[in-house]
């Protein structure tokens, strides 16, 4: 038995963990009963935990083929985005879609159908996939795409590993001219100003906002909206043009110990957020930022999840449909600010339209933030759930560790269809996680 958790370090569960080295060994592991595949363990909650049968995909980590004419990369599911970038950015290619950490496996990115700062234009991770290979409970492997076995393809995107084990994928990369991002920071002193900044910049390839969730009154929702695009060679200072993919290496820092619970309190949170806001205001305007700092600021601190101490933390992420977004965000932020709760890095992002069977995004606004794991946070998050539901929003299972089944099915009936499909096809007896059991999937 191995004690495992997601990135939020709650819950922790003793799991029978195996790490098969090839397809035969993987099939034998699946034959042992309901299983869940696990990649880098970067889902926050219990998506990749199964006490009886958790299967690590770490050994499935080979690059299989690359076609420079189309930018299509074939990889095994255990390969991480960090490895893809390390191999292909120097050749002028970058993932079309990336979440906020590069330490995710491709299998995990597909299972959660993750999104990035360019969702409003590029869609979710699935939009960059040509095909996926999925192993069923009986060990047979099916290649699924938009055209063949499209049911399996569309059910798998965002289904948190509950349709089978993702083995391989064909992934389209985008050509880039440099390893730099041309970034523009727009300070927005209120929530409505932040929304206006997003709506006025839908043509920016990347956009995301850090939002001060401790601000109240007229400053409620004040944000730093950060726009970005891949810099061309002509955007770089002359010295950098000769080696446009060389960026300064970041010193790896890490949080060596768990912080005690009192380190994060309303006072330190407010102080940090205020400092961040004023620092952001000073840096307002245009800047060149390297890809690592721009896309993965938190990756610079290995083990930042220990910030919240031994009890771990909970992440809240919902999306609200466009017409209800302003009112919903206002209600959510009021509830959070009133509690003096909130986190160092709360994130607001405009999603574009999304047409998929289970994926989280929809056209509107998504809010993500984390809370220390304690009773007050759980109470607050129940309240945030209700506000989300009242505004027609839904929840992101890659972040979830504590939602209840009734709330999920009421806010997002797609999951009820999915659960029914799993019952009918026998998938329910073959693939399960602590999360799927909690959420009646």
């Amino acid at each position, binding site marked *: 038995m191995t004690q495992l958790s997601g990135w939020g370090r709650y819950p922790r569960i003793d799991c029978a963990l195996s790490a098969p080295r090839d397809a035969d060994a993987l099939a034998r592991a699946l034959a042992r009963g309901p299983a869940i595949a696990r990649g880098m363990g970067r889902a926050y909650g219990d998506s990749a935990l199964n006490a009886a049968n958790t299967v690590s995909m770490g050994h499935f980590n080979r*690059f*299989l083929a690359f076609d420079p004419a189309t930018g299509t990369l074939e990889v095994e599911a255990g390969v991480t985005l960090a490895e893809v970038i390390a*191999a292909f950015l120097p*050749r002028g290619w970058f993932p079309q879609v990336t979440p906020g950490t590069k330490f995710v496996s491709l299998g995990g990115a597909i299972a959660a159908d993750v999104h990035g700062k360019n969702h409003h234009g590029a869609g979710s991770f699935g939009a960059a996939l040509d095909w996926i290979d999925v192993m069923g409970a009986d060990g047979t492997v099916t290649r699924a795409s938009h055209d063949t076995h499209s049911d399996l393809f569309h059910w798998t995107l965002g289904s948190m590993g509950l349709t089978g084990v993702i083995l391989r994928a064909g992934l389209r990369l985008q050509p880039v001219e440099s390893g730099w991002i041309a970034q523009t920071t727009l300070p927005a002193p209120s929530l409505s100003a932040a929304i206006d900044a997003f709506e006025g910049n839908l043509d920016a390839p990347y956009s995301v906002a850090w939002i001060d969730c401790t601000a109240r009154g007229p400053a409620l929702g004040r944000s730093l909206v950060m726009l970005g695009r891949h810099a061309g060679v002509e955007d770089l200072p002359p010295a950098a043009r000769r080696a446009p993919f060389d960026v300064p290496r970041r010193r790896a820092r890490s949080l060596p110990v768990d912080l005690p619970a009192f380190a994060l309190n309303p006072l330190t949170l407010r102080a940090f957020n205020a400092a961040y806001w004023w620092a952001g205001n000073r840096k307002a305007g245009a800047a060149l930022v390297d890809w690592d700092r721009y896309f993965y600021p938190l990756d610079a601190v290995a083990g930042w999840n220990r910030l919240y101490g031994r009890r771990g933390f909970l992440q809240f992420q919902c999306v609200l449909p466009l017409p209800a977004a302003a009112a919903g965000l206002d209600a959510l932020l009021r509830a959070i600010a009133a509690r003096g709760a909130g986190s160092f890095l709360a994130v607001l992002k405009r999603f574009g339209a999304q047409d998929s069977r289970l994926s989280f995004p929809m056209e509107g606004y998504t809010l993500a933030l984390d809370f220390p794991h304690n009773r007050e946070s759980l109470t607050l998050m129940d309240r945030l759930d209700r506000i989300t539901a009242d505004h027609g929003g839904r929840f992101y299972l890659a972040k979830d560790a504590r939602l209840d089944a009734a709330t999920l099915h009421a806010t997002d009936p797609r999951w009820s269809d999915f659960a029914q499909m799993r019952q009918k096809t026998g998938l329910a007896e073959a693939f399960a996680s602590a999360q799927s059991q909690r959420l009646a999937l």
Partner: protein
Amino acid sequence: MTGAATGGAVLILGARSDIARACAQRFAQGGHPVMLAARDAATLAPDATDIGLRHGVTVTCHDFDALDPEGFAAFLDALPVLPEIAVCAVGLMGTQDQNQRDPAAAIRVLRSNFEGPAILLAELAERFEARGSGTLIGISSVAGERGRASNYVYGAAKAGFTAYLSGLRNRFARGPVRVITVLPGFVATRMTEGMDLPPRLTAQPEEVAEAIFQATRRGRDVVWVRPVWRLIMAIIRALPEGIFKKTRL
């Protein structure tokens, strides 16, 4: 792709082991073309493809049987080039229980860990000397530092290999061949899968590979991957035999 083709070719012997695979990746990352050698070389193709795609270097696969010393010369002759660096990761642990009862098992362990690696490196040493350059890297084991009841057949073979490497290094102290002995300690590999190893004493294959790669750059003779092992083995070696023979280590 970084630094492609900036280094001399590296031959990885026993290329299917986890340490060997990690070494191949590390040297390829450093821009070295890589030759993978093991039995049934066709099955190395996925690794070769992976390494080539990640690092943009040429990777080739070659049939090699460590238990066939008569074939060593022909094997080396058939390589596309004489390598600049050879990493010998050939090894077979077996189980002590079987090794102490079954002569055939013991012979296989002795030959795989000592005879094959030593004879092959000797062959390479001659060719490196003739050319006037080359680095030999032998992955031996702390198990060879003192024979223990729990794995003395494997340990004896590794002791022989360690002594052989030491002798080669002594012979070539004034050049032109460099000889590096690697003593990894516990490593989390297929060989040790399922064993209950203390995490502080257990290295990852990538850690071993990094230590080996750095040793080629810095001119080290003996590489202890985790320094704590040097201390542990110094103590174990220093124990008087009268005490040592009663221990269960």
